[in-house]
């Protein structure tokens, strides 16, 4: 059972307070009418399903009710970081040790989650 650092509450909380909501960073097409059926189907149903680093959307349902993102390894279940909506991950498939270009925006969250590992 995960121990998740809520970036809004600023502390580690039990998984039971959270709900997973699928892959993170899925943006609704800006002009749905311009989408083909295929594009719309992709947006609705097709998700990354990596064996490894994955970016997920979670909500602190029993807590602050905020949605936020988690970078998690889908085999070890290690949580590498949590970050707020609108922020970008620093751990990615390309940068498994952290430090992606968009990084360093939230070093605090990375540090807080560190030590909570599989």
């Amino acid at each position, binding site marked *: 059972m995960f121990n998740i650092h809520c970036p809004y509450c600023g502390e580690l909380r*039990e998984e039971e307070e959270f709900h997973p909501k699928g892959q993170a960073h899925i943006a609704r097409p800006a002009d749905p009418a311009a989408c083909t059926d295929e594009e719309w189907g992709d947006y609705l149903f097709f998700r990354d399903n990596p064996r490894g680093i994955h970016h997920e959307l979670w909500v602190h349902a029993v807590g602050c009710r905020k949605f936020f993102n988690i970078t998690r390894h889908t085999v070890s279940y290690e949580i590498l970081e949590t970050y707020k909506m609108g922020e970008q991950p620093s751990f990615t498939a390309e940068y498994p040790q952290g430090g992606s270009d968009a990084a360093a925006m939230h070093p605090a969250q990375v540090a807080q989650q560190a030590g909570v590992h599989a």
Partner: protein
Amino acid sequence: MSNVAIFDTRTDAKIPLESPLAYAYRRFGAPAATARSRVTLRERPFLGHLILRGGAIVLDEAVREVLGISLPGEPQGLVLDAEGERSIQWLSPDEWLVIVPGGEEFTLENRLREALAGAHFAISNVSGGQTLVELEGEAARELLMKSVIYDVHPSHFPVGKGVTTVFAKTTVILRRPSDARWELVVRRSFADYTYRWLLDAGEAHDIGVER
């Protein structure tokens, strides 16, 4: 009508009120506290409960001006006024719970709205939808450990903290206004379940109910 409909749902008319625990008291009773009781439960019904939404920067000044206490600066913060009668608690980065003596909430809402005029914020009166339950006694912490998943050790849950967390199969807002006292803010429709759970789990501690 203004942009937002403000409505005082309370009346001064002499009308019998029923707290969310009224049915539970009648159905399951309220074991009196005895000398052996290591935990006591006390409901403080009919208080004024307001949910305040808005950015901290927007709200802080108005809250200080109107309530005389400042917005908790940190997540999980709980601030009480000098008498301990009025409190404001952080619920999320843009959500606060204000609890005041019953009857003050409508005036408070009006004054806050006045002070906040022009800002983007929201105030919702939820006084009928929740009640406050206090736990006190040497076994209060153990009773909470049986009930909530959150760490209630004093080193982790000092006075002045409050969280929303899982309580058995429901949720509560759990607060620690003073060294000896814990407060549970309970939703009305779950009050019966919460009460039964506390009586059941508290039986080993000779839980007493003060009414």
